[in-house]
């Protein structure tokens, strides 16, 4: 890890590690439960991408906002989402963040500044810009960060949002998690530029490439972008180069990935990189790392128990919350 990890101190690195373990174990458990047929729908895990979610959210304040993607469990956990309530949502239970109406792809907690994960690729980018516009109109100092993938950078929503955010100097950070694949299609097969961050030039904003598997590098890049946004200097585009270890969805056979590529990236597993950096700083920290893993294991087990024991929403719930006002009449006809 060519990181400046040692400049941040053991305590900070252990905090990052703890958060990354939560993301890793949550998604591994979700994948396992899905494979066992214990939950319905579709699961998109971010195993391998923990450093971007955690590095970015650690650089934000609790009053800041994010928009997440369909691969958004890590984003929501890193922004303070509770594993038990998220797991309950994945199970479609009444105790979930969205009362079981949103599921894996739509987790939101407005109170934590999570404006929603999104099932539409790229859709969260202009929504984040709109949140930043609200901060500008209201004179607030909040920053909004949009997570999105390399695939979304080819959507019109990306370009329209970057253009307006730049023209109006909105306090927004565009964080592209370039995990190399849009479902099965490698980004270089459908995009001619090597770095998506180069697109920042077209909108006269900073475009920064970081090692997305290095949590400290992501943390530092997002911290700088957040400071810039808060100073009224406008948006930044950060491209975090990372890799998704699992398929697009659970059950995806991943025939499109070369074996040597997978092996190379697994060696650069963000948790292993951080572990190495921590142990280089303090060889005696091994016990602490093990304790963190155990603690998170218990948290995730508790989350699954909570989710499984929670009730399903009642039938009346199916027609509630379509509308805020005049719901019954608007739903009836």
């Amino acid at each position: 890890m060519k990181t400046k990890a040692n400049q941040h101190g053991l305590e900070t690195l252990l905090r990052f590690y703890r958060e990354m373990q939560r993301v890793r174990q949550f998604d591994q458990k979700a994948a396992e439960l899905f494979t066992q047929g214990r939950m319905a729908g579709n699961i998109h895990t971010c195993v391998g991408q923990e450093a971007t979610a955690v590095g970015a959210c650690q650089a934000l304040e609790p009053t800041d906002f994010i928009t997440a993607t369909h691969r958004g469990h890590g984003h929501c956990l890193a922004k303070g989402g509770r594993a038990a309530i998220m797991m309950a949502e994945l199970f479609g239970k009444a105790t979930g963040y969205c009362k079981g109406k949103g599921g894996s792809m739509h987790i939101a907690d407005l109170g934590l500044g999570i404006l929603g994960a999104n099932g539409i690729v790229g859709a969260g980018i202009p929504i984040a810009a709109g949140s930043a516009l609200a901060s500008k109109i209201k004179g607030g100092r909040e920053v909004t960060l949009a997570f999105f993938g390399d695939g979304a950078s080819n959507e019109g929503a990306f370009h329209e949002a970057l253009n307006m955010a730049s023209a109006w100097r909105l306090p927004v950070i565009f964080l592209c998690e370039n995990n190399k694949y849009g479902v099965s299609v490698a980004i270089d097969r459908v995009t001619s530029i090597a770095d998506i961050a180069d697109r920042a030039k077209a909108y006269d904003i900073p475009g920064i490439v970081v090692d997305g598997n290095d949590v400290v590098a992501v943390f530092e890049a997002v911290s700088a972008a957040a400071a810039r946004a808060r100073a009224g200097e406008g948006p930044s585009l950060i491209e975090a180069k990372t890799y998704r270890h699992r398929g697009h969805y659970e059950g995806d056979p991943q025939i499109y990935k070369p074996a040597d590529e997978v092996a190379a990236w697994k060696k650069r597993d963000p948790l292993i990189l951080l572990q190495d950096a921590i142990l280089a700083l303090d060889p005696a920290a091994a016990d602490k790392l093990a304790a963190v893993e155990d603690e998170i294991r218990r948290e995730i087990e508790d989350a699954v128990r909570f989710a499984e024991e929670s009730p399903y929403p009642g039938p009346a719930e199916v027609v509630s919350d379509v509308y805020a006002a005049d719901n019954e009449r608007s739903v009836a006809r």
Partner: protein
Amino acid sequence: MKTITYGQAISEALREEMLRDDNVFILGEDMAVMGSVFGLTKGFLEEFGENRVIDTPISEAGFTAMAVGAALRGLRPVVEIMYVDFTPVCFDAIVNQAAKMRYMTGGQTSVPLVIRCPGGAGRRNAGQHSQSLEALFTHIPGLKVIAPSTPADMKGLLKAAIRDDDPVICIEHKLLYAAKGEVPEGEHLIPLGSAAVRRPGRDVTVIAWSRQVHSALEAAKTLAAEGIDAEVIDLRSLVPLDWETLASSVRKTHRAVIVHEAVKRGGYGGELAAQIGEDLFDSLDAPVKRVAGLNVVPPFSPALEDFIYPNPGDIAAAVRETLGR
């Protein structure tokens, strides 16, 4: 009472709501410096400043989605899409984001967004500037749809829409912008989901909205001279629907004719006809009739365009037919 145009009613509604609530702001193409292509927001930039009167780039998808984001943060954006024909450009923001946000977050948030868009034919603007697309929006749970026909309704409904916590699509008929009408002085609000009986009658219920209300009233005048007493209902709000007013009229007259400018196939009239058939079959003395636009692309040539939407003669003929005369 004072007499103003439909366009002025929009302007007054926006201005009053912006004065009343700092969270209301407007954005769209040419809204600020130019005061909108229809001149509805002239002077707003000077009065409210560039934070609340925003000239966007030509990026309907982007700025409509941004309005959703701003609404999630507690603001109340009013977006203008220059023509309803351009709304398909920003359908994701409307259909997948604004409409579903409340439900998919389990009621955590509302999207108090109003999208204003001129619709309708009659200005020789051809296929991409003359459509009536309200049926697309009535099909999406989570959206509300209004289509006012008079200045008073426009003002009262638009103000109510801005105060409503749900996303509302306000379809304005571009041929009505210059139409004049009386509007009450002072605070004037019309609740969404309340239809107006424009002309009471006992022989047949004619249901219309937007510009076709005026055609229906003209047809009713012609029919009255023939001894046919038509009741004309202006729905004003398509979602929520004022079923009570509609149903009690049909129970009284036993006949229904639905009129809209949108193409007949897949139109909202078909939905209303089905609901009347399902719930009021025993009250009916004749099949429900629809008078609607032709299933064609709006043509440019004046000689062709005037054929595509219903005129009072078409409506009168449909009423006579339903009465067996």
